[in-house]
């Protein structure tokens, strides 16, 4: 840097010809690149359409409105071969994928944190077990694990006729776990309402307790009050309705039919195997992420906490984990995304997820490969981006705020 400037020196960067201006040049290259990509994409799309026309393959998204004509065994939205469309089949696959992904993420996170913390345990047996778990499960391909769980789940269970029975209402056999299904009566809306009030009340009480602790240092019994509200209010509502002579919830019991059990609620072996496989596999990776996060926290933090008289439990919960989270969250997000995408392996064990129903059956019955694959890719992309977005929001919250 010159320490002295001539009085008439122009302010700002030296003036050059626009042709040599690095900023203009940079922008020009980017525009050129964008144009090139756009042209290539345009050619590719045009070509694909042209080739499809030449091959006389029908195209367009109109097929989504056609009647599907096939059945799916596990659906949360109504689906029948007679009236439902390919579009509905898509939604069936999508909801099934989302259900498996959501349950898998929750369970894998819980298991992964437990194993990750256990890997650093001073107890030799706990530590070794956790290490063996991680090393075994993350080194075997997920597909093999899924097949193992599916075969293991199936092979160890009796046939439908000789189901294991717990009382007269719970059955376990090769076709899955059968439970009584609650049927909500017309007046049953009071129950979810009571539950919602309970949850909101708990949240408000927790906020109040925090303020109270910050102000006076006194700790209020959040857990006890919360449990009372969340469980107590619905029970109270149920009691009131029962006193009024209304049975808000009836139970539909599974009954043995000629082949399977009828009625009730069924948890399918394909679903169980998929959730189990995804959970234990991803948990092994999450455990490593958690271990790395905890080890990234300076040892001095633990020592300082102990010096203040905190027990090992609270030290971990209040001092170490919160600091570890900022290291844990980004790779944890990747694991969530992996789990969601890996759920597409469901196709191997017959669980009707998006890939199985939509890219399998629908693609084959309609032959609309380009459209179906494009939609499926867009869906996974959307799910992944939404997950990443949510996790980034969370990441911003737990990130280290420097003062």
């Amino acid at each position, binding site marked *: 840097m010159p320490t002295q400037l001539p009085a008439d020196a122009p302010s700002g960067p030296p003036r050059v010809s626009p042709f040599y201006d690095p900023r203009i040049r940079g922008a020009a290259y980017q525009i050129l690149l964008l144009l090139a990509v756009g042209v290539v994409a345009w050619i590719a799309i045009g070509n694909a359409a042209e080739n499809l026309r030449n091959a006389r393959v029908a195209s367009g998204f109109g097929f989504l409105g056609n009647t599907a004509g096939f059945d799916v065994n596990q659906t949360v939205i109504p689906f029948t071969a007679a009236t439902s469309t390919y579009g509905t089949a898509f939604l069936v696959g999508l909801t099934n994928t989302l259900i498996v992904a959501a349950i898998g993420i929750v369970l894998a996170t819980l298991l992964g944190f437990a194993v990750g913390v256990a890997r650093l345990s001073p107890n030799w047996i706990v530590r070794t077990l956790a290490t063996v778990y991680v090393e075994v499960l993350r080194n075997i391909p997920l597909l093999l694990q899924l097949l193992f769980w599916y075969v293991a789940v199936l092979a160890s269970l009796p046939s439908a006729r000789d189901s294991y029975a717990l009382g007269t209402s719970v059955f376990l056999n*090769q076709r899955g776990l059968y439970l009584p299904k609650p049927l909500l009566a017309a007046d049953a809306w009071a129950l979810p309402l009571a539950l919602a009030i309970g949850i909101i009340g708990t949240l408000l009480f927790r906020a109040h307790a925090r303020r109270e602790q910050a102000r006076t240092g006194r700790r209020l019994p959040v857990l006890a009050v919360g449990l009372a509200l969340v469980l107590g209010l619905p029970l109270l509502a149920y009691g009131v309705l029962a006193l009024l002579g209304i049975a808000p919830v009836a139970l539909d019991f599974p009954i043995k039919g000629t082949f399977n059990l009828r009625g009730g609620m069924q948890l399918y072996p394909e679903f169980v195997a998929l959730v189990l496989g995804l959970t234990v596999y991803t948990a092994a990776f999450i455990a490593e992420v958690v271990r790395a996060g905890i080890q990234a926290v300076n040892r001095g933090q633990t020592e300082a906490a102990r010096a203040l008289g905190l027990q090992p439990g609270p030290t971990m919960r209040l001092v170490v984990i919160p600091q570890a989270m900022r290291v844990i969250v980004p790779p944890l997000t990747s694991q969530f995304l992996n789990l969601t995408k890996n759920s597409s392996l469901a196709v191997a064990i017959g669980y009707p997820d998006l890939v199985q129903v939509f890219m399998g059956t629908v693609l084959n019955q309609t032959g609309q490969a380009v459209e179906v694959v494009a939609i499926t890719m867009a869906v996974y992309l959307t799910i992944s981006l939404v997950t990443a977005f949510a996790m980034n929001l969370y990441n911003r919250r737990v990130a280290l705020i420097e003062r």
Partner: protein
Amino acid sequence: MKRIVAALAFGLGATLLAGAAQAQGTLNSIKQKGYISCGSNPGLAGFGVPDAQGRWTGLDVDFCRALSAAIFNDVTKVRFIPLSAKDRFTALQSGEVDILSRNTTWSMSRDTTLGLDFPAVNFYDGQGFMVKKKLGVTSAKQLDGASVCTQQGTTTELNLADYFRANKLKYEVVAFASADETFKAYDSGRCDAFTTDASGLYAERLRASAPDDNIVLPEIISKEPLGPAVRQGDAQWADIVRWTHYAMLNAEEAGITQGNVDQMVKSSDNPDVKRILGTEGKYGTDLGLTNDWAYRIIKLVGNYAEVFEKNVGQGSPLKIQRGVNALWSKGGLQYGPPIR
């Protein structure tokens, strides 16, 4: 810069235009590369299955060998590409295979919307059910409430839904991507019934842990005309596929077999036989092949009856009766239009 963009556009254009190679004719492209890419079943006894030596056997793979015989005078110029029911049409549409010869049902929507042609039917079949004997079921009508294992992306899956709906029976479908997984699930007890084409039921039963504990129910719930499929828009190739099947039928009808074909070609004065074997007329060259194309097929692969008996009939573990697959002259549906 300009040169880079041009090269880029050319390179990408070449990749994206790969499909256009088909426009020059499947026969030409087969001759150029020196072999037929034949989409086959990944494993169905009697129709397309690799044996312990890795050699493919079956009615459908022999059909590709017959094509290879007709084009190259050699049955080994075929590369078999095993395709699941789910992947088969995409593989054919995209040009990965020249022909699909893997018990594929000819249906109207496949013919009209998938860009496919079904030149011939080499096996008339129908969908049936298999159950475990110990269930005591003797008719498909008794399957109310049953779980049924099926392969996804098949006409089977659709017929199943239709049948249970038409008969007002409840059922639960469990669908798998491959035939192998489907049958394993049935065999291990996940489903009460297994459904596919009747020929497939007999073939799969051989693989069951205890074949005799399973029975095939009498109901045939659909028509399944199975045959080779080709891409639409190449009439010459479709003709070659069509007439390869008809040549094998006409040979059976005229009594020409692998054993006597050499003698027939020398001494027969039956004009039908002479036209089939190419000693009279120029039917083979009109087809784009050599005039002895049918002779090659019969000499190297055999007539329809021989191929049928060897792979799925009395000479095989499947022991399927000719039934509707007998020649029209013997009460069946197989009818070879005249070569003339």
